[in-house]
């Protein structure tokens, strides 16, 4: 049971990453292959400040949120100057640069990373795995609520307009540059927030846990579930996060699985499992439509039959 909870916390952390990545990749349509690095920034700042300066877990959450957000702000500013594929490789590069900084700057503990990160406590009690899961689910709920809110506001609609046609969006008065930067900042800040949970949960952070591969895994989960939808982001994280735990043999082929998923999904089903326009969603829509029509037909038919 306790092992299930550990898997659950891992899945929840992945889900926070995919839902936050969806803001920038799904809504704004900007490539971002650095979500793992933003997770790392949050986790590292939380780790450094809780071990070295004995900062409380509850304060490391906003700290991780803010530091990763600042990094996202910088990436957002850079993104304004670059076309999509150049931006994609810049974000790839960001992973390597950030991992190198963790590895070589003494403040971040060097190649060994940071160990013995204290367990958070609440009301004098140290965190159990259940507490980690609860806090993780609250964070996930928060990120999902913000995403949901975005979908229904002028700001969110503007983000999607930028995705569909940047020139058209700016011609109707969408402040493209500042909105992009805000979206990048928000997306990175959420990933950093997940890092503040990740660090005490694993009790150690090492430079190589956050890098290109981790970023690709998060993107693969999002694409698998369905880009542009919250349900897709969560579903992708749940299925692909839990699968290697449920079937041990898969964990030996983890990267093979993520690589194959990326190329097969993009080749045959770029909408993902439950994204807008995916086969599954179309089939369900058609089925419910059919059902409604049949029911509707049933009610109109019966009086006629009576006559």
């Amino acid at each position, binding site marked *: 049971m306790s092992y299930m909870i550990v898997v659950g916390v891992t899945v929840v952390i992945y889900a926070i990453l995919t839902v936050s990545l969806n803001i920038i990749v799904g809504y704004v349509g900007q490539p971002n292959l650095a979500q793992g690095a933003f997770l790392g920034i949050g986790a590292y700042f939380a780790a450094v400040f809780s071990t070295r300066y004995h900062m409380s877990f509850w304060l490391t959450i906003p700290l991780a949120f803010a530091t990763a957000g600042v990094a996202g702000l910088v990436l957002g500013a850079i993104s304004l100057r670059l076309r999509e594929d150049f931006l994609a490789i810049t974000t790839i590069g960001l992973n*390597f640069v950030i991992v190198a900084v963790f590895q070589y700057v003494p403040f971040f503990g060097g190649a060994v990373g940071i160990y013995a990160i204290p367990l958070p406590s609440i009301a004098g009690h140290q965190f159990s795995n259940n507490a980690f899961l609860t806090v993780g689910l609250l964070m996930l709920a928060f990120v999902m609520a913000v995403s949901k809110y975005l979908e229904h506001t002028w700001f969110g609609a503007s983000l999607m307009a930028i995705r569909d046609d940047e020139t058209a969006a700016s011609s109707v008065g969408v402040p493209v540059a500042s909105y992009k930067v805000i979206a990048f900042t928000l997306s990175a800040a959420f990933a950093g927030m997940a890092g503040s949970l990740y660090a005490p949960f694993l009790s150690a952070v090492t430079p190589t846990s956050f890098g290109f591969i981790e970023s690709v895994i998060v993107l693969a989960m999002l694409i698998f579930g369905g880009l542009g939808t919250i349900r897709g982001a969560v579903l992708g994280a749940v299925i692909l996060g839990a699968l290697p735990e449920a079937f041990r043999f898969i964990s030996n082929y983890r990267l093979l699985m993520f690589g194959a998923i990326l190329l097969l999904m993009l080749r045959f089903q770029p909408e993902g499992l439950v994204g807008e326009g995916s086969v599954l969603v179309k089939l369900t829509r058609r089925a419910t439509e059919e059902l409604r029509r049949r029911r509707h037909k049933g009610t109109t038919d019966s009086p006629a039959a009576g006559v």
Partner: protein
Amino acid sequence: MVLSSLINGIVLGSLYALIALGPTLIYGILRILDIANVAGLTLGAYTGLKVFEATHSLLAALVVAMLASAAFGYLLQRFLYRPILGRGPLIPLIAGIGVFIAMEEVFRLVFGPYPLDFPATVPLPTVHVGGAVVTGVQLLILIVGIAVLVGTWYSLRRTRLGLLWRATSQDTETASAMGVNTGLVIATIFLIGYALAAISGVLLGINYNTVYPTMGDIPAYKMLAIIVLGGLGNPLGTILAAMLIGLVETFVVAYLGFVLPRDAIAFIVLIVILLVRPQGLLPGESFGS
């Protein structure tokens, strides 16, 4: 010291040019950053090693490695890239990353996770140039590098294939309307691009006497940095950028020391270039025109 750094830098630059040339040709024609090309490099290195162990012939190793990689490249463009060409530059880029990661895992499962030796002796003498030493392997890299670069320049500039490459890279639709079989041109460029990757893989393996599943990681991102620095899809720019990166890495490490690992230099250069001069050193396809 200066001379030997210069020679090391040029050898490294030639190796980088070989690695980046294939993806440059592919970018020029399809506007796809083909990260999967590096899987062709590792495939070439492993194939070359296995053939070398069986035959003890470096030539046979090179030829079979080129054939294996070229076949891999052909399949990739036929069944992955061409069907998704119309969906913008990002989808093929990310699908290519998928291939790159999946293939690294395949290499690990097939050949094992540990580095293998590539104990080839090169039938070339060690040369002394005024105090500096050029080893046989370095000489081989220089000779192959120069031969390939001159060969590529000649083919692009003087042959029918070169003309077709230039036409297709300038405007695929117009080229196609003018009767160019663009599908065939794309397939040929992939065959060449992946054969070049195999050569780089074998040379890398011999040069460092090691072949391992993730040996493509560092070449992959240096290749990206070099392509962008060289002005995207411009072969001459790529060669210049490769030399520049090779020399800068060698000299910075030899004379300044560097807080970050030397492999970070290429990416810092990349990010600075993207921000300051996104069109690269030599914009456009000036190699052919």
